[in-house]
């Protein structure tokens, strides 16, 4: 994972929050009051008072399916200095992972967040591994200070969509 960061939205990339399939989004080990939409959804993530917090221990497993195939370019995570995430592993196209099998597969990418990154600067991912993403699993393994719970203010995903066939546009060829 390169340490470069860009402080503005990367060129030609869009915010992928519109392509998230909200009905199947899951987050394991989230606290009941501080849940995933607080960090992911458009309005809530900008609200300073709302954040995502872990429950029983400091790990979080977030499963985000998309409603079409996308390429992921970079990710921005904002969190408090102490309880913000430190080691973040990304898995592509793995459905319904649990905490028990996160270590069975190698992650598509791993990001170590420093306190600097936690202010919301985007961190670029290994683009080649994220060309054909249907679902993204974010595993937050530990936080900055090793505290009991991890807090995340917002998660923004930047990328582009892959041109998928628009079935409505397909027309039958006329017989002459």
């Amino acid at each position: 994972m390169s340490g470069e960061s860009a402080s503005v939205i990367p060129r030609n990339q869009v915010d992928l929050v519109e392509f998230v399939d909200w009905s199947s989004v899951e987050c394991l080990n989230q606290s009941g009051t501080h849940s995933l939409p607080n960090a992911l959804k458009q309005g809530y993530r900008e609200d300073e008072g709302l954040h995502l917090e872990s429950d029983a221990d400091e790990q979080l497993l977030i499963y985000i399916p998309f409603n079409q195939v996308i390429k992921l370019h970079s990710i921005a995570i904002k969190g408090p200095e102490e309880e913000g995430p430190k080691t973040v592993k990304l898995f592509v196209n793995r459905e319904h992972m649990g905490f028990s099998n996160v270590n069975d597969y190698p992650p598509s990418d791993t990001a170590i967040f420093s306190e600097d990154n936690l202010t919301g600067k985007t961190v670029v991912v290994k683009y080649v591994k994220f060309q054909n993403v249907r679902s993204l699993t974010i595993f937050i393994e530990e936080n900055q200070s090793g505290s009991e719970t991890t807090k995340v203010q917002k998660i923004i995903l930047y990328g582009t969509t892959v041109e998928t066939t628009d079935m409505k546009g397909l027309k039958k060829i006329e017989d002459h």
Partner: protein
Amino acid sequence: MVLEATMICVDNSEWMRNGDYSPNRFQAQADAVNLICGAKTQSNPENTVGVLTMAGKGVRVLVTPTSDLGKILACMHGLEIGGEMNLAAGIQVAQLALKHRQNKKQQQRIIVFVGSPVKYDKKALELIGRKLKKNSVALDIVSFGEEDEEKNEKLEALLAAVNNNDSSHIVHVPCGPSALSDVLISTPIFTGDGEGGSGFAAAAAASGYEFVDPNMDPELALALRVSMEEERARQEAAAKKAAEEVANQEKGEQQSTSQDTTMTDSVNLETSRPEKKIQDLTDDENALLQQALAMSMDDPSTKAAVQDIDMSDASADHDLQLALQLSVQEESAADQSNQTDVNKLLADQSFMSSILASLPGVDPNDPHVKDLLASMQNQSEQTKEEDKAPKEEEKK
């Protein structure tokens, strides 16, 4: 009707031979398991239930989560008692079985029957509990049979570690005259956090179900129950809407309070019968109509009563206040204001038509009523011209 996958952990250790529950602990447990399976599959047809035994040679899964009730009941048959219960292993295997459920949208739940002493220490149980919570698995504990202080403490600690928003429960069933399953029926384990299971439970216990025995025709019973709930919700929504309309319109205080009591009546009743609601409306509206008639006939006592009560409402309504000021000054103006109030009420088309339609004894086409209303309307012509034309057309 939560969509759930449940794993039931049965204790078939040697401690189950004891006869302090009739006929013996194991049989009572088996009855309870059968009842729970039935309730779960009834409350939502897509629910799945699985069963495993914790004692014997080792933890053994008898049936993986399935919605086929027959298969579940069949596997409970012919179980043998023996060995010692392994609580931790049982819960962990149950968690694994749930992890591999076919429908990932189902919520995960484990129901464990603990009849023998718990040999694991509190720390280990808490660790297990936290792992369950982390994987969002709910846990119900049925503690029966052997009772000792330690066991209770450990199970309470386990529950505290798992519990997330009260989705997990513990039930202590002491030995006594009532059967294990009867005691369980009234607990949240059966009623599923306070919803649908009570229908099944009522049927099982006292055949109190109205139209159809769920055992005979579960699909029809389900459809009926859903439609009744929808009807109830619709009525409550209609009641709320009517209450809002009342608040928006300019009315005397009696009208709004009578409407309010009607609304609270219909909302508070869990099984609100439509007849009863109309009954309430009829009684109140009869009183209203009486009062309107009395006022129109210049009955001084009633007029005074209305006037007194109107004063208290005056602060809310500028027009009303103005009218009342006039009435205080002059007697003739008093007539006018009362008439105006009544006219505002009576001129309200929707309200009038609803009253007249619901009153069984009053025929809108009755000439007497028509004359009365016509005289009202002539008075209100000056104030509300727009209502007149549709009113007269409707009355014809």
